């Protein structure tokens, strides 16, 4: 039976970077995924935003790490992930929104984030043609940006391969061999492998995988659709986020990628639970009509493709990271909600450090994202 230090279950936004950082630290790594290749779970659905501007310290910390990694990917490894540091801009068209953004700024600044309130003029400078009517300004965090999830996943896969990690695709995890408080082996439909540590990085299916080890995980797949347009010359800089809702949707956000396309997605209201990632007819007309009313210049932009994927949601919108009480060697990296892509690289580094005994400085992250927290409230910038 093949034996390794770490068996990573899921080659997605979380599993692939983690594989690289573990292998780089000298661990022997086996990654298992039921899909035919890497990043084909929800990673392929992410639109590509990477930010540190969250409302809680743990994600801020991970986000900052991820940004650093994304920013340096080209220089450090010569790999293109289409990183573009356009910043994130949350726009406000009403007093209440302005107030809540400004309240949040206090927390975010205290956490050391580069973020500020900007005037309507500055908003329009960053995104010319945005609807000026009633615009009150917004928050802008110039250090945030975006990268291609496909290219990022491919880059980490390549780095992991080169660092010696082994990937086995087309294998579904079907069970664990458990002895006492520890997992000894993981079984798939094609084989059985033993490892010192097992990582649940199964994204939208993390709860099912947890069940196989007798664990209840509060992770529920929440369906979202996204889309991409034709490429045009750069006309806008930041990721634009409109947190307002209407009767059928909550927030929506879009940005112009390094390669010129506008990539967008929306949060349906009410949430759509499930795993059916086939497209529905309602998304496009609705999302597009909201985008054009916010940003009339998009009228002439052609939509090219749309898709659907899941946010692995938790009740409070924060991930679950760390060890459960039992099995004690099943590391959880689940419940990434709408941010798994941006958390992946940073979290990979943190977990690899932790697995090799370098994790002391991340105590607060594990505390805040513990499986045993209260799961109250909802993250403000989910």
């Amino acid at each position, binding site marked *: 039976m093949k034996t390794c230090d770490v068996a990573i279950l899921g080659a997605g936004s979380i599993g692939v970077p983690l594989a690289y950082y573990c292998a780089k630290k000298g661990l022997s790594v086996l990654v298992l995924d039921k899909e035919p290749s890497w990043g084909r779970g929800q990673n*392929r659905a992410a639109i590509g935003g990477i930010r540190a501007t969250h409302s809680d310290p743990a994600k801020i910390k991970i986000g900052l790490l991820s940004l650093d990694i994304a920013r340096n990917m080209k220089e450090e490894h010569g790999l293109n992930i289409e990183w573009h540091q356009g910043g994130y801009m949350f726009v406000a068209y009403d007093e209440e929104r302005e107030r809540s953004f400004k309240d949040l700024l206090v927390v975010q600044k205290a956490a050391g984030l580069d973020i500020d309130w900007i005037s309507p003029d500055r908003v329009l400078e960053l995104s010319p043609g945005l609807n000026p009517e009633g615009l009150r300004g917004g928050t802008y965090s110039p250090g945030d940006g975006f990268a291609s999830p496909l290219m990022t996943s491919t880059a980490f896969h390549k780095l992991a391969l080169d660092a010696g990690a082994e990937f086995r695709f087309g294998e579904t995890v079907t069970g664990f061999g458990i002895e006492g408080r520890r997992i000894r082996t993981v079984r798939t439909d094609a084989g059985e492998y033993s490892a010192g540590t097992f990582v649940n990085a199964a994204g939208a299916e993390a709860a099912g995988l947890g069940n196989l080890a007798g664990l209840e995980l509060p992770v529920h797949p929440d369906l979202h659709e996204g889309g991409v347009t034709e490429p045009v010359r750069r006309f806008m800089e930041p990721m634009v986020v409109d947190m307002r809702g209407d009767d059928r949707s909550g927030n929506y956000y879009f940005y112009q990628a390094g390669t010129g396309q506008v990539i967008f997605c929306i949060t349906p209201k009410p949430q759509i639970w499930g795993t059916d990632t086939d497209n529905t*007819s309602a998304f496009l007309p609705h999302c597009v009509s909201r985008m054009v009313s916010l940003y009339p210049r998009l009228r002439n932009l*052609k*939509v090219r493709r749309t898709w659907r994927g899941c946010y692995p949601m938790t009740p409070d919108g924060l991930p679950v990271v760390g060890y459960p009480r039992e099995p004690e060697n099943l590391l959880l990296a689940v419940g990434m909600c709408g941010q798994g892509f941006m958390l992946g690289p940073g979290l990979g580094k943190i977990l690899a450090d932790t697995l090799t005994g370098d994790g002391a400085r991340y105590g607060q992250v594990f505390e805040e994202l513990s499986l045993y927290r209260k799961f109250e409230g909802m993250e403000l910038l989910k």
Partner: protein
Amino acid sequence: MNRIVDHPILSAPEGRTSVTFSFDGAALSGFEGEAVSSALFAAGVQTFSVHPRGDAPQGIFCANGQCSQCTVLIDGVARKACITPLAEGMDVRTLHGFPELPARDAPRAAVSGETLSTDVLVIGGGPSGLAAAAELARLGLSVILADDKVSLGGKLVLQTHKFFGSEEDCYAGTRGIEIAKRLEEDIRSLPGVTVLENSPVAGLYKDRKAGVWRNYESYVLVDFKALVVAAGAREKSVLFPGNDLPGVYGAGAFQTLVNRDLVRAARRVLIIGSGNVGLIGAYHALQAGIEVAGIVEILPKVNGYKVHADKIVRMGVPVYLNTTVVSVEGNGKVERATVAEVDKDWRPILSTARTYEVDTVLVAAGLSPCDEFYRQAVDFGFLAVTAGDAEEIAEASSAMFGGRIAALSLAKLLGKKVDIDESWLAKREVLKSRPGDNLCRDEEIPTEFWKPVFFCTEEIPCNPCTTVCPTHSIQLKERKGSIMDLPYFEGSSCKGCTVCVAACPGLAMSLMRRVDEGWAEVVLPFEFKADFEPGARLPVLDQEGAFLEDAELLKKVFNRKYRTWILTLKVSRANAPRAIGIRVQSEAATRPLPAPRFEHLPDDAVVCRCERITVGEIVRFIRENAVTDVNQLKTLRVGMGACGSKTCSVLLPQVFRKAGIDPARTTAGTLRPLALEIPMKDLINEAAGRPL
């Protein structure tokens, strides 16, 4: 101006309005409503954009709205030239790199789109879709038929030649364009059918709806119970260096330019592929006054019907078997093409290379079915059938039959009590069939009575010669027991009426009558401009194109019904039984350069045309990243372009093989809407909204 004004078969559409427009600032004129791409070709413009990768010039490829190669800037907006109708005053410009998003911020309110309901949605208004829709409507089902063109008929509207098949079942002997007209009239007279012409289906959704870009200006959803996918086929691209140069395009695009829009799109072409599409392409070129340097075929055998190949060869076009293209080169456009024979592993033998001076290379290397909607529908668990080329690449005749059969099987599934006539199934199979055996015929001897001579030796599904003869003198001789059988002259009652000669779509019949011991009268069909008069001497050829003699023209008559010249020639007694063609192209047009001139850079062939990704780049990527899933090629942007991987996906198996990976082990790319790009303002039906 490259307009065809003297086509032997087609007359220029009447009542067209001239309009003026500009290209890169220069004033040009064209016809209102014709495709912008055709107007540009007519004005000698073949480069429509400069690709951001490598500043490469781009021209058309499909002229059918599928590939997105033809994007130009029209009044500041990037649009596909081949599906944009020309209008007075248009400002057309070469698109350099990515377009600028126009700063036109005067929005109108979004209007929620209509949802139309129907029993059956038929996607595609070619022969199969039209036949299916008609059949379903006759059974009392409501039908919406959506087609992306202004006029219905699918590929038929491009086909100026007479059709094979049988007259009673599928209008054999009639030209495609005329069949299209009849089918369109038929469908429009049926009450249960709503036709959404000029309206591509852009996506299928899990909630059993289709999104339709209606009139290319608004977006409607169609809620259907069942689906017929009859979207036809698209041309396959071929991998050779230079395959992305303006001037390399599909044979279907060529037909569109030349036959539909009457544009003399080229001066001299080389054709890749000897299927019927390639063979007919050569024929259409000659009819339009365009030279054909030759047809290359990598296989050891002509792929299309022998009667087609024979007639092409007789017109002076060589067909080179076991031969492939190794390179197409030129400064920003096609200037020359180099071909070479291949070894048993299909690798070019460079020592046999020959270079031809051509300005156009037509790709006719087969078609691939537009079956994406069908595959998706099956995935989604919808009630769906497919017909015509979308089901299996064949002929218009079998497409019509297939459409009817598909309609009936669908109606059955929808709970209608119907019986499918068993004989239809058999007929469809026959009509779809590949050519059968090539048989020998005894040489005929001229007698004092008229008699038809057949140069139709290969079994194909065809019989108009038997049905048009007023004296029933021509019969199929039973061998297979279907219309695959070959025709023979029975009895002695031929009146010499020449109808069979005019009707034969293969131009594979003559009539012959001995006049005295020395010579005979021979009647031949001729579908070119007959700018000669009795008394002239014409070069007469045999079935394989070998020169027989210069024969005196005795008489020429135009058969209006079949739009074919009937020529009577005075041919020597010895040659009369073998005379079947008249050379129209001189040998000079087919001569290669004295020495080959090319670079051999096979890795430079472009696979993904939208994103300009080459074979070499993909092979390297596959190797470096251990790729077996086509989806991963998206990292290179393969398949991420405007066409949605319609063009490159069929080429990828070859590329995987080249990278040492068995294509059978690879995972196909995922299909997602939209099938074509739609501007946001149309998705929200802005045109119907009030100004904001």
